[in-house]
């Protein structure tokens, strides 16, 4: 219901804009435009007052959050395994078009509610994507998710080199498995040089003898 109300607020904006666009004489258009402007200001005032988002009329609350670097943060981290058994970071563009950090958040939200078969389908999907990106990089090409503008493509919201990717030797052999870890860290610990702790959640394909 809330989603449809939010869609409705944009629909009203569009409706008022079309009313202004359709007005032929200047005084009518001015009246319609004034209503449109008043509506926009009202919606933004409501969004700011309530702190609730109504995208594309946003309250932009990102850096107003409480950040505590002594809190324990966590996210899901996927790593791939080549056919010699060596483990490598998954390419940050394996989950394109979703930004890498969003893929991690989506996995965090979904994996825990999936049964083993569901987890395996997600694992198979991401493994195939990672292998496709590996093949392209091994051939000296960019990942398809990196955009059509080469180095001038817009990054996915975060500077791309802040995410690990496999070195050249990690591109030489096909990927055969994918492992999903939960990474835990505290900001203060990483600041002091301590690495994140990784806990293995599951691996696809499941090692022999493991369920299912």
């Amino acid at each position, binding site marked *: 219901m809330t989603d449809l109300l939010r869609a409705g607020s944009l629909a009203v904006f569009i409706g008022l804009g079309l009313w202004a*666009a359709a007005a032929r004489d200047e005084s009518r258009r001015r009246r319609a435009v004034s209503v449109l402007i008043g509506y926009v200001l009202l919606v933004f005032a409501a969004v700011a007052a309530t702190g609730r988002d109504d995208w594309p009329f946003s309250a932009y609350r990102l850096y107003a959050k409480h950040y505590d670097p002594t809190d324990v943060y966590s996210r899901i981290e996927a790593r791939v395994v080549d056919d010699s058994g060596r483990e490598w970071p998954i390419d940050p563009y394996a989950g394109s078009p979703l930004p890498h950090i969003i893929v991690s958040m989506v996995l965090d939200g979904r994996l825990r509610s999936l049964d083993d078969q569901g987890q395996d389908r997600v694992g198979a999907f991401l493994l195939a994507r990672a292998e496709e990106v590996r093949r392209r990089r091994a051939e000296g090409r960019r990942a398809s*998710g990196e955009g059509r503008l080469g180095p001038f493509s817009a990054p996915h919201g*975060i500077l791309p080199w802040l995410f690990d990717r496999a070195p050249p030797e990690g591109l030489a052999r096909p990927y055969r498995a994918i492992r999903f870890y939960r990474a835990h860290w505290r900001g203060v610990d990483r*600041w002091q040089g301590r690495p994140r702790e990784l806990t293995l959640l599951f691996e696809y394909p499941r090692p022999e003898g493991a369920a299912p």
Partner: protein
Amino acid sequence: MRAKSSDAWNDFWFRPVDDRGLVVARTVSAATALWLVLSRPDLPSLVAWPRELWSGVSPSLAARYLIGAPLWAEQAAFVLLHVALVAVLAGAWPRVAAFVSALLLYHFASFEEVMWHSVGPYFRGFTLPLLGLFVVSFAPSPKRGVRSADHRWPVALVQVFVVLHYLLPAWAKLTTHGLDWASGAVVRDAIVATATAMDQVPPAAYRVAASPFLCGLIGVVTLGMELLSPLALVSRPAAIVLVALAVVGHVGIAATMGAVFLALPMLVVLLPWERA
């Protein structure tokens, strides 16, 4: 009093100006959007992702963003989005093209965060261009050599959208932290918590976080700039200062927190292009 405020309203929104501001607003909105969609060539493919990953998207959320078409239809719509944006840039049926672009941007922008978002879908750069494209589609096409109120209000409205991008975060910070947000401690904690979420830490994060002076300076300048940002709507020098400070600020955020403000080109709309 009422006549005075009515005069101020009319002067701000409807004073006759030349077409330069409107041409710039239209061009920058379309160019920014085109840059972003060319950088995301596989956006439509998201609809073919496993249903397990879509399971958290409610039918009402999907309906809000007009999601539900098959892959071929999404791919066709994505091609149409490119064509429409190029048409806006070329000035070919610009109002219709801008309207179609804005509607399709609204749809495709949602793809990047529809499966997960925590603080509201800011949609990674698409917000300001899509609002800008809607507004220029509502306004009569610019006429060269003519001074008109219809050249003024669309530009002013897009400028308001850009300024709200700075003013509303200041409001959010004040309602959450009060003036303490400008203290170095809050800025330092935000830098450390954000910067350590990636595999590598952004280059300047720890150096800035270790300096109470720099953190305090960032807090005061950021909050001051955001609170004073509406001055850019009424003062040409203030607009130039805001654009310069905002660019420095966004570079600083990238260097300390790794986050890139993809709608940066939209700041150009604030510059004093139009002539009365």
